[in-house]
């Protein structure tokens, strides 16, 4: 007995028995207690149930379903054979060890028939008993391992199959020696077939493809095998039995046999029809968009050209008669001052002033068209510094005026320095002009960020404007103040110029105002405006 205990110390069995239970049925109390103790000592992790006859044993079995049943044969109420039969009926996998006296041997045939595969003779030789139990435990554990392994395999196969189905990715394996193949279920589905409905063979694989692509795939696989290389991705069309077409992305890896010869190819066939269709759609949309851009650009170029020829007309053809008119006005003024007709010379002078005004408008118009079509040179511009310089200029030009300039620091942008300077000159100039009747004028330049867009503003507390004239504000040759009211310069082109410059910088401009409260001009600029001009 101690020997047996020592044997167990020699080393634990290499398996984990936890969770395994043993039902021991024996009517002799002494024997039952003794054996139970020995079992508990040798198999501390084994869950042990004991019963004193077959009926109690069967009840315990029903309750706990232990993996191992060890039973005496000859017992009152229900013998071991009957109980074993009942247990086997419940669970054919139950392992039953019959503990028999020599006198019970007549039962053995019965026992074997039932499926009792192990028996131990009484009086119990523990070494023998433990060796039987060890063997059974080992079988149980191994069976569990195999079961677990199978479960995992099934699980991962299911996972792979789901993944393939979700990804529309079929896989295949090709035996290069005989052309036999193995297709994943999804590959069948991709080909429009019931999984397993066709013998997977190289020829039936090739048959899926459209003739042109069939040759491509065939050559690619042959080349890959010859050169011991993987099959790089090929896009091929297949035809399903219902006639519909799919586009597959086929690629494969080559595996060599022990002698380094090409043996197997494992590949994937990815159904990319929808992706390709989407690509096609995007390409069409892009093409369409490009066509429209080209169309719009040529329309734009046409109107810029029209504008150009119009401004050429103004600057060349119109200037000549205006200059002529000016010449005659001067001649009139000069010659009439000689003849002494005062009224005449007054008219002549006034006519000359009108001519000057016309020339001024022509200049303004030409400037405006120039800003719309000139070439942009994009650099980093410090708007704060530009505004500061402009402010200083105005302050020096009218030192008697009290104007508080509030200028935000270091507002850096990318743009054309010359044009931005002109735009800000107009905006600050307007603010300066329309605050001229304020005792304490205030002109502010700053920015705030709204929904990721930086908005620059020039705000004053001057004359402001009525919002109902808002849409006239940025139009050339339109004014909302009467001539003379605010040293009107006769062209009304400043804000139109600013508008044009801001547009050239991919920005927007708008204004808010209230009569006698002031005006705020807001504008945005594209972070990285396109240099050059429309005509290029």
């Amino acid at each position, binding site marked *: 007995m101690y020997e047996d205990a020592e044997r167990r110390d020699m080393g634990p069995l290499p398996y984990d028995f936890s969770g395994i239970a043993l039902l021991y049925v024996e009517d002799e109390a002494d024997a039952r207690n003794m054996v139970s103790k020995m079992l508990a000592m040798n198999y501390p992790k084994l869950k042990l149930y004991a019963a004193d006859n077959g009926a109690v044993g069967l009840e315990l079995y029903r309750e706990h379903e232990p993996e191992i049943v060890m039973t005496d044969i000859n017992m009152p109420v229900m013998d071991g054979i009957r109980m074993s039969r009942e247990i086997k009926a419940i669970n054919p996998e139950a392992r039953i060890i019959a503990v028999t006296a020599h006198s019970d041997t007549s039962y053995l045939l019965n026992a074997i028939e039932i499926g009792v595969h192990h028996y131990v003779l009484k009086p119990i030789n523990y070494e023998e008993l433990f060796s039987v139990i060890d063997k059974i435990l080992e079988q149980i554990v191994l069976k569990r391992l195999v079961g677990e392994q199978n479960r995992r395999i099934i699980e991962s196969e299911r996972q792979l199959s789901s993944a393939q189905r979700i990804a529309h990715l079929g896989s295949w394996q090709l035996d290069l020696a005989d052309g036999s193949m193995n297709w994943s279920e999804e590959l069948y589905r991709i080909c429009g077939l019931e999984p397993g409905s066709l013998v997977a063979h190289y020829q039936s694989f090739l048959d899926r493809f459209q003739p042109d692509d069939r040759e491509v795939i065939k050559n690619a696989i042959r080349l890959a095998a010859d050169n011991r290389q993987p099959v790089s991705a090929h896009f091929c069309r297949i035809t399903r039995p219902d006639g519909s077409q799919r586009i597959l992305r086929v690629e494969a890896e080559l595996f060599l046999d022990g002698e380094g010869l090409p043996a197997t190819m494992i590949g994937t066939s990815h159904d990319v029809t929808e992706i390709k269709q989407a690509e096609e759609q995007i390409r069409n949309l892009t093409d369409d968009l490009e066509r429209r851009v080209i169309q719009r650009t040529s329309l734009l170029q046409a109107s810029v050209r029209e504008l150009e020829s119009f401004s050429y007309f103004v*600057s*060349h053809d119109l200037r*000549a008669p205006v200059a002529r008119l000016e*010449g*005659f006005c*001067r001649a009139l003024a000069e010659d009439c001052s000689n003849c002494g007709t005062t009224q005449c010379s007054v008219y002549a002078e006034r006519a000359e002033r009108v001519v000057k005004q016309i020339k001024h408008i022509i200049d303004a118009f030409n400037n405006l068209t120039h800003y719309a079509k000139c070439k942009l040179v994009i650099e980093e511009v410090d708007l704060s510094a530009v505004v500061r310089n402009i402010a200083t200029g105005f302050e020096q030009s009218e030192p008697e005026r009290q104007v508080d300039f509030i200028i935000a620091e270091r507002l850096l942008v990318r743009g054309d320095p010359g044009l931005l300077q002109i735009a800000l000159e107009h905006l600050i100039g307007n603010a300066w002009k329309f605050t001229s009747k304020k005792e304490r004028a205030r002109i502010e330049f700053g920015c705030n960020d709204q929904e990721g867009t930086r908005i620059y503003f020039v705000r004053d507390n001057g004359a402001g404007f009525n919002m109902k004239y808002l849409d006239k504000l940025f139009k050339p040759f339109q004014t909302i103040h009467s001539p003379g009211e605010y040293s009107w310069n006769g062209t009304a082109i400043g804000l139109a110029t600013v508008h044009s410059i801001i547009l050239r910088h991919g920005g927007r401009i708008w204004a808010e105002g209230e009569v006698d409260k002031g005006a705020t001009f807001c504008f945005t600029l594209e972070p990285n405006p396109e240099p050059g001009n429309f005509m290029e």
Partner: protein
Amino acid sequence: MAESYIFLVEDNPDDAFLVSRIIGKVCPETIILARDGEEATEMLQKMADDASYRRIRLVLLDLKLPKINGIEVLQAIRSSDVLRSLPVAVLTSSDNDVDQERCRALGILDYIFKPLTTDRLEHVLSLNKDA
């Protein structure tokens, strides 16, 4: 002293009148008028042949002319062995930078925006005297 000329190339009669009026106020020269570039080059060629070109005190040249434009006339003058050093002032009503550069490169006394004034003509004539 023999008669001297101002050679005026101007197609527009009003402009021709206005310029003539100013010339009349400023200097005693006789005005020779060419009404387009072709006429101008032909007349100048004749004056080159009979050496009367020497009596041209100033060429006043409009740029926008029918047939042969002002710049071409100027080119013809500057490429002629005889006429090349004639004093020329350009008259124009357009502010075309390219034209102005080309004229200055060919050699002119002045580039005058119309209308011509007595002051400006006096100035040009004084430049010519210096030269």
